[in-house]
């Protein structure tokens, strides 16, 4: 299977801080891959490099074998990489369906002259845009809420609308930054199913950042672990769960010896009583 997105020794440096240090990630087409790691590990920075918001100092980013590092954000988006944000960033003063229509922007061609003259192209594109917007609203379960302002939607609906906006450009790669943040277990469960259906039904490759381990272990085909900007582990969920370096990164380096000590003390106490 060809690689959808591939980073080759990507580094991003802010002043003296190396936020992402020579990271290699390969996500095969039609996979669901996760990036995990403690806070400040450089996950979102890596996302920003892929989506073109940052230009990495070193390394290469290949999207279907095409180098995209250093390209303007809008070019990267037009090629078919869409993303959502850790803290939802919708166009709050626009209606839900308009948010989706903005997401469709690169797919249409009508310019300002078309708009003024109301050319056939303008009219047919506009009709198509609204129809597809309605279809996407239905797909993410927001039917009937299309004309409410995005900022007035409930939290879960905003998350789904943000994904709908990302889908509007028919992306080949979807970057999801903590899609289940702030959700209760039921909502998280629903979102997990939804993400899986994006891959299964629409054939979109998905790369996500997530802190909820149940979600990560449940849906990922592949997990990459970052710590202090460096990749410390990579593999299937099972491998990651038992990986010593990952446990240390999350719980501290002495965790094994600590557990042993604790168990020893417990035994002693039982022995005394």
């Amino acid at each position, binding site marked *: 299977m060809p690689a959808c997105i591939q980073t080759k020794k990507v580094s991003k440096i802010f002043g003296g801080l190396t936020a992402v240090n020579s990271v290699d990630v390969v996500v095969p087409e039609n996979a669901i891959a996760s990036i995990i790691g403690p806070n400040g590990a450089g996950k979102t920075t890596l996302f920003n490099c892929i989506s073109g918001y940052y230009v990495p100092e070193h390394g290469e980013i290949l999207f279907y074998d095409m180098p995209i590092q250093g390209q*303007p954000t809008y070019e990267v988006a037009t090629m078919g990489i869409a993303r959502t944000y850790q803290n939802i960033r919708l166009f709050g003063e626009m209606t839900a369906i308009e948010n989706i229509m*903005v997401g469709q*922007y690169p797919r249409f061609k009508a310019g300002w002259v*078309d*708009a003024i003259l109301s050319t056939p192209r303008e009219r047919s594109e506009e009709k198509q845009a609204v129809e597809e917007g309605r279809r996407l609203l239905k797909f993410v379960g927001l039917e009937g809420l299309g004309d409410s302002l995005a900022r007035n939607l409930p939290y879960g609906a905003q998350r789904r609308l943000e994904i709908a906006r990302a889908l509007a450009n028919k992306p080949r790669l979807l970057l999801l930054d903590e899609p289940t943040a702030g959700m209760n277990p039921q909502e998280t469960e629903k979102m997990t199913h939804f993400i899986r259906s994006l891959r299964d039904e629409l054939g979109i490759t998905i790369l996500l950042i997530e802190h909820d381990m149940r979600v990560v272990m449940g849906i990922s085909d592949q997990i990459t672990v970052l710590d202090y900007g460096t990749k410390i582990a990579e593999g299937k969920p099972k491998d990651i769960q038992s990986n010593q370096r990952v446990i240390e990164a999350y719980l501290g380096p002495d965790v094994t010896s600590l557990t042993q000590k604790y168990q020893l003390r417990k035994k002693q106490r039982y022995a005394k009583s």
Partner: protein
Amino acid sequence: MRSSAVDNGLRTGVTFGIVIVTMFLIGFTVTGAGLIGKLFGASDSATPSLMFYSLFMILIGMWAGASASPRPLTEADTFKRALISGLVAGLVSGAIAAVIGFIFGDLSANKIDPRTYLPSVSPDSIKLFLFNQTPLMGSLTLLALMTVSAAVSAALSFFFRSNHWLKNKSGETSNAARGFFQSAGLNRVLQSQYASYVFWAITAVVLIILPRVWGSYWNYVFGTVGIYIILGLGLNIITGWAGQLVIGYVAFFAIGAYTFALLTAPEPHHLTVNFWVALALGVLVAGISGLLIGLPILNLRGDYLAIVTLGFAEIIRILLKSDLMTDYTAGPRGIRDIGGPTILGKPFVSDVDFMYVIIVAVLAVTFIAHRLRNSRTGKAWFAINLDETVARATGINAFGSKLLALSLSAAVAGLAGALFASRNQFTGPDDHALMVSINVICLVIVGGIGNIPGVFLGAFALKGLPEILRETESYRLLIFGVLLVIMMRLRPEGFLPARRPELEKHAAQTPSGKEA
């Protein structure tokens, strides 16, 4: 719950009482009554009749009542509560006015002239304030008038609001207003398709007839309003929609005016280009200058952009004024004898004719703005306005879009400038001071940023109203300032804030959207 209705009325009443007393103390009661008299065609506005004064006070009372009536309407608001609010507001404001009126009436009766301390409170104005009655009877009349008018208007505004509210929440029952308005069927008439045709026909007739009948003075005033509408619509593109604060907008106005002037005036270049060609060139040059200015600066955001464009406007003005450019732009003297419009070789330059040119220009720019507003381009602008980073990440070339917005804005300003120069047959550096920019920004904000009807309203309020208020002479700017403050307090989003279209519902209604 009743106490809150009383509270509400009390607060409004005190405010309006103070307003009435202040108006009385600065002599505005006489002026206001005179204005109303003028509206009804009375010749002498200096000594208005009692009837007009009563009308003036009734209007104030009704305003008090309307603002005391609960808003926004909730389930708990009943007709009784609205009436109580209005009644209390009228009583309180009337009482305050009555007490002051009684004191001054008594002073006046005892031959003490308050003009030593309050130059505007003449015996005549006191007499008028008390309806030409004795102090006691006069103040009681004032009290009664305020109470009745406030109560009536509170009741009326309750009916209007409850009707509006019912429209939003159909399915709720048990409200007297509902049956009243449904039987009237007013809404159905207003919402029918033919109503809009009739509306447009009336507007067209009015626009054709008005410039012929109301004289050159009003043609001048509304010509200026029209030019500011064009400027407002233009600025609205870059500032209202794309969200880039361009303070130096007047620069493009100047470029349009000077391009047109230099092409059609005998001095300094002996050019007499046809009006329409020169107009098109003015628009084009201004548009291109917008493009050129935008290239280096549109990567800046917010405050920086504002400052840079401010500098640009000043550079243009100072260049036009400088000796360096005298040979090319006639320097501080300005350019005289600028050409007027012609149609098929015939001059078309009377004030009436020029008003038509301005009306056509306003309609054309409005049409273009309307078409752009909800187009793909317009949505991209609005997305950049709301969150530029995200807009880029959804595939919008933010720089290109902003550049387009700025050039279109500049081109529209160029049109306004060319019309302005041609109408006045003169243009000089002082016509293009920064104040023009600030006025345009103000009118866009006052009207409701990003909204086309708002620009019209803002232009009328900021450029038309000061002329209409010219009668009131020294109070002109005071009233104007007060109106602005009140408006911004009541409607911080502008008078007619922008609304988003209902695309989902709309698509559901058309047959083509059904299968989606």
